[in-house]
Each structure stands twice: as structure tokens, then as C-alpha cells.
């Protein structure tokens, strides 16, 4: 068995035979272009001119004062075009798809941010785009559904299974099996069969590279702690990656604990899951004793996935990164807190990271630095947070 694409015992290429050659073609294409000067130049151009990179590293002065511990910086991935970190990966994959001669792009989406980013870049390059989205998520993220359609993409609601992100991935995989010759599957997180976990991480690692450079300029030192939310784990992988070798930097991932990890309503994969093989990879999954994948829940549609990218499973197992649980209530409180304290409305996903920072920062000293990766903006979540607080925005 090939050892490439393995993170310890995690990773691999567990896909149906029909797509295996396509996975190999993608692997070859990625190996060929990732260090190609023209590819890198074109990607850098679109990062800067289209996606608004580098994203700002903002000193959160009020939050720092209020919490009374570490100096808090916020990495503003929410200011990217389309409002989240997802565009970093999509630009990379679509530029690759173009070089591979693929004319049709498919994607899965949970909260809709990856779907919107994919629909956006397909509009930019004139490619056909089809986004699979769980019917539950279509319901709770109707704004993003409209945005995708506005951008010219097909949005296909998936009602099989639990009607959420994992089912959207299942359906995208089935589409890929069927239309394998013409179609490029643009996976939105650091998951799936190799080379996706490596490729998506590489397209997202610019986040940690920028944090490091920006902090060097502002503080002339490394951060002491970096916090990010984790569903599949792409923004966290991007925010952690360049610091993995810097052992003084504490890396903390925030998983969605939903209504609590002792209820069936959560998505806390590393806390409650176990080893398995699903969606192309060996990793940790929420499942029952017979290996049936558990339904998961979180107020955040972007975090309710029953698995986690294989590199996170490896960082968790080796202890290099730690992963903590954040409930819906804590996330909503952090959502409101950041809005009032800094005038920044975070995505409900990113609010999970803000919540962890609110707990950790006061335990740190004033000369230490904590960075929150704010993976997305919260406009899309105002409606569901309102609903959580008992305010019906649509009918008020």
C-alpha cells in the first residue's frame, strides 16, 4: 500500500473503483502543478486581486482588555471575497481543474460557504457548477442557496439520510462516479481520499503563513496560542499548519458540542467518535457499535459533520493539537459577544473558536498572544441565532 497521503494510520484512498483512476489523475495533476511557477503566479494573482488577500490580522483591543489576559488578534478570513476562508481552496482547485480540462464542477456544502465560493469561482471562469446540499441545510441557509443560484449554479437538495453535509457528500460522490470523465469534484474540506486532505490544506496554509508574517511585523514574535473551529477542519488546518513545527505554539480546535456531548445532539467527533473508514479516508467518526454513521447536530451547519480530516486525527492522536467542545449556547454567546465588543459579527462556526478564546485568554499572561482564526462572517447566521434567542426575524 502506498504511504503517501497517510498521516500516521489516518488517510488513504477508500473510494469506489470507478473513481479510482480519477483520484490518481488528480494526484498526478496536483503533483505536477503545485510547484509550477505559472500555477503559483496565477493563484497568487487571484488571491490578491479577486479574493482580497492577505486578510487582515486585527488587534482586538476591547476583547483583550475585557478578558484581561493574553493579547488577542483576530485573523479576518471573514473579509475575503464571499465571506469565508473557503475561497482560498476553491481558487486553487478550480485553477487545477481548468488545467486538467474539466468543464463541469461539483461540490458539496453544509453552511453554504463552500458552495457559494465554488459557484462564485465557476461564474468567474465560466464553468458549469452543481452544488449538493442537504435538504435540512437548504432550509436553514436559504440566503446562501439564493446566492448560489444567483451565481448561476445548480443547487441540488439532498433528502436522503439525515439531509445534512454527510449526505450531500454521498450524493456528490455518486455524481462523480457517474460523470467521472467530465467532472471535477471540488471538495471543501481537508477530508476525502488522498490527495484532497493534502491539497486542501496546502491551499489553506496561506492563513498560518500570513499570521506568522503579520505577527512578526507587529509583535516580532510567534503567537502562544492559535484557536480555530473544526468541522471537517479546513480553516483550522490552514491556521495551524505553519505553526506545527513551532512547538511553543499551542494549537486548539473547537468542535461543535451542540446541545451537549452527553446528548445525541452534537458533532464532537474527536471527543465521542472512534476509528473508522468513511468518505475515502481512515479517520475518527461518530458511529454506532456496528459502524453505522451517527446523525449529528450543531446550530452551525458548517460544523455538523460526523468525521474529521485525517491530519487533524493525527495531530490529536500525537497530542500536537488539542480539541475542545463548544455548545450551541456558548457559541451563540460568543457570537453576541464579538458583535458587541469589536463590532464584528462572526460566522456561527467561527463563534465556536471565539468561545474557546474567551475561556483560554484569561488564563494566559498579558505578554502572551492568542490568535483567533475568524473563518467567516456571520450575516448568514443572523436569522438562526435570532431564532435560537426566540426572535423571528422574517415575520417580525
Amino acid at each position, binding site marked *: *500500500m*502506498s504511504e503517501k497521503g497517510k498521516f500516521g494510520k489516518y488517510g*488513504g*484512498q*477508500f*473510494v*469506489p*473503483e*470507478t*473513481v*479510482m*483512476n*480519477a483520484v490518481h489523475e488528480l494526484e498526478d495533476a496536483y503533483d505536477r502543478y503545485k510547484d509550477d511557477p505559472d500555477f503559483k503566479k496565477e493563484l497568487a494573482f487571484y488571491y490578491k486581486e479577486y479574493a482580497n488577500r492577505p486578510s487582515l490580522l486585527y488587534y482586538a483591543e476591547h476583547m483583550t482588555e475585557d478578558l484581561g489576559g493574553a493579547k488577542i488578534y483576530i485573523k479576518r478570513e471573514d473579509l475575503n471575497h464571499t465571506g469565508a476562508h473557503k475561497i482560498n481552496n476553491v481558487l486553487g482547485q478550480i485553477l487545477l481543474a481548468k488545467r486538467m480540462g474539466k468543464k463541469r464542477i461539483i461540490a458539496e456544502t453544509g453552511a453554504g460557504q463552500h458552495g457559494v465560493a465554488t459557484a462564485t469561482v465557476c461564474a468567474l471562469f465560466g464553468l458549469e457548477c452543481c452544488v449538493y446540499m442537504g435538504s435540512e441545510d437548504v432550509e436553514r441557509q436559504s440566503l446562501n442557496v439564493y446566492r448560489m443560484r444567483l451565481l448561476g449554479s445548480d443547487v441540488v437538495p439532498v433528502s*436522503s*439520510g439525515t439531509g445534512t453535509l*454527510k*449526505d450531500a457528500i*454521498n450524493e456528490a*460522490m*455518486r455524481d462523480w*462516479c*457517474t*460523470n*467521472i*470523465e467530465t467532472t471535477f469534484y471540488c471538495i471543501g474540506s481537508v477530508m476525502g481520499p488522498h490527495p484532497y486532505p493534502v491539497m486542501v490544506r496546502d491551499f489553506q496554509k496561506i492563513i498560518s503563513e500570513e499570521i506568522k508574517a503579520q505577527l512578526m511585523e507587529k509583535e516580532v514574535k510567534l503567537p502562544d496560542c492559535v484557536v480555530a473551529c473544526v468541522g471537517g477542519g479546513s480553516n483550522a488546518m490552514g491556521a495551524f499548519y505553519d505553526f506545527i513545527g513551532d512547538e511553543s505554539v499551542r494549537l486548539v480546535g473547537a468542535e461543535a458540542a451542540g446541545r451537549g456531548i452527553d446528548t445525541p445532539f452534537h458533532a464532537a467527533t474527536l471527543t465521542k467518535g*472512534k*476509528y*473508522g*473508514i*468513511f*468518505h*475515502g479516508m481512515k479517520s475518527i*467518526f461518530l*458511529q*454506532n*457499535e*456496528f*459502524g*453505522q*454513521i451517527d446523525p449529528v447536530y450543531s446550530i452551525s451547519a458548517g460544523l455538523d459533520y460526523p468525521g474529521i480530516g485525517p491530519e487533524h486525527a493525527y495531530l490529536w492522536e500525537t497530542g500536537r493539537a488539542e480539541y475542545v467542545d463548544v455548545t450551541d449556547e456558548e457559541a451563540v454567546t460568543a457570537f453576541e459577544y464579538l458583535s458587541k465588543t469589536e463590532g464584528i459579527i462572526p460566522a456561527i462556526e467561527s463563534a465556536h473558536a471565539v468561545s474557546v478564546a474567551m475561556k483560554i485568554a484569561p488564563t494566559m499572561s498579558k505578554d502572551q498572544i492568542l490568535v483567533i482564526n475568524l473563518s467567516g462572517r456571520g450575516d448568514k447566521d443572523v436569522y438562526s441565532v435570532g431564532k435560537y434567542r426566540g426572535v423571528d426575524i422574517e415575520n417580525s
Partner: protein
Amino acid sequence: MNRIDRCFADLKAKGKKALITFITAGDPDMETSKKAVLKMFDSGADIIELGVPFSDPIAEGVTIQKSSKRSLDGGTNLDMIFDLVVELRKETDKPLLLMMYINTIVAYGTEKFFTNCKDKGIDGVIVPDMPYEESGELKDEARGYGIHIINLVAPTSRDRIKKIASNSQGFLYCVSSTGVTGTRSTFTTDFESFFGAIGENAACPYCVGFGISSPEQAKKMSAYCDGVIVGSAIVRIMEEKGAQSIEAVGEFVKSLSEVM
């Protein structure tokens, strides 16, 4: 000798092709599954695959997806399926396979899984989300128990066909065309060249599946290889008639068997 190998040796001696059929175990209940399996053998099926239902069957079309869900909703688990196999083995000595997703094997524990396969009477295992390159570990373990892990090969396998076909055991499962399981009215695959490449390299009999739903298709496809696999078309009868589907399933299997 593994029952699959014996079955193909017998068929070859008689100059016949294999008819392999599939149902999801526990759809709609275990009693119906038992009757359906015995009826299919009586009606001319040579080998039967029992589908182990999975929550997220990514290689399946809608028919088998729904069937998996009906079975899981009825409370089916792998222990119950092994119990079914014990019951079946009291009445038949024909080959039985499990078709199942890799995570259901991992969760059960491979040692316990293969021990049960051997003790209860399973002859082979098909894992649709485990490609050839990832199958080494499981094959090494299965070998010690005399269980065949069935390789799959697809039209898109191209230059990997040789490697997969020459390292196959039991039979080689040839996927007729791109896409998931389910019936198709037409096939666009160039069968001459696909089966040509397989025939030159196969280390064991090779059979074709995915989308075969009528005696006409079964007859036509069996000309290329050593047998045909029919799944969704049978599962659809089970979907329509539930526990009352035994006679209809028997008649359909007989209609396939008669043309082969």
C-alpha cells in the same frame, strides 16, 4: 475448497455461466430474506450476495439506498445477518457472499468478522468502497480463514485492469459502466475492449454487474464473461411487494436463469 471456487468449477464442467443475485439482508425482515435466498437458489441462482445495510451507501443508486434504509429501520445489524447465514446453512451449501462497506467491517473487528464468516458459512466478501490498492491488509487477514475478498474492476480502471485482474480470487466483479448500482436501459461501455483486457489477465472467473435488469440484458452480457450479477432489479421487487415478494422474485430469477 471454497464454495465459490467449487461452484465455478462445476459450472465450467457443464459449460454454464453463473447467475449471481443480490438482496439486502433484513429488507423488510430476516424471515423474508431467508425465504428469498432459498427461493432464488431453487430458481437457478448459483451464488447469492447478501447486502449488509449501511447508513451511507455511496456506491448505490436509489433502489438499494432505500432498501438499506428499510433494513436498518427494521433494526438489522451484522450479528443478525450472521444468524441468518447459520439458518441458511441448514438448508443450502451454495456460495454466500456479503456485500458491505468497509466501515462496518472495521467497527465489528476484522478478526471477529472473519472468524464469524468462516464459522457461519460465508465464502466471500465484496467491499465497494475499498479499491484494489487499499485491499492488501484485509486480503492477508481473509486468506487465513479461506474467505475470498472479491476485487472490482471498472471501465475507468484502464491501465490498472491488468494488475487488478491478475490478482483476483473467487471471481472478479466487473462493473458494467460508470455510475452507481441501479438499472440502465443502455450501456455505453466498449465491452469488447473492456472484457478483452480482463480476459487476458484474469486469474479467476469474471462476472459483470451494475445495471442488468432483464433476461435479454443478462443473456447479452453473459456472452462476454463467466456470469452476471443482478441486484437492483430484484431489490425493486422486494420494495414493491415486501414480505409477499417471494414468488415474484423466484419467477424473475428463473427467467434470468433460463436464458443463461
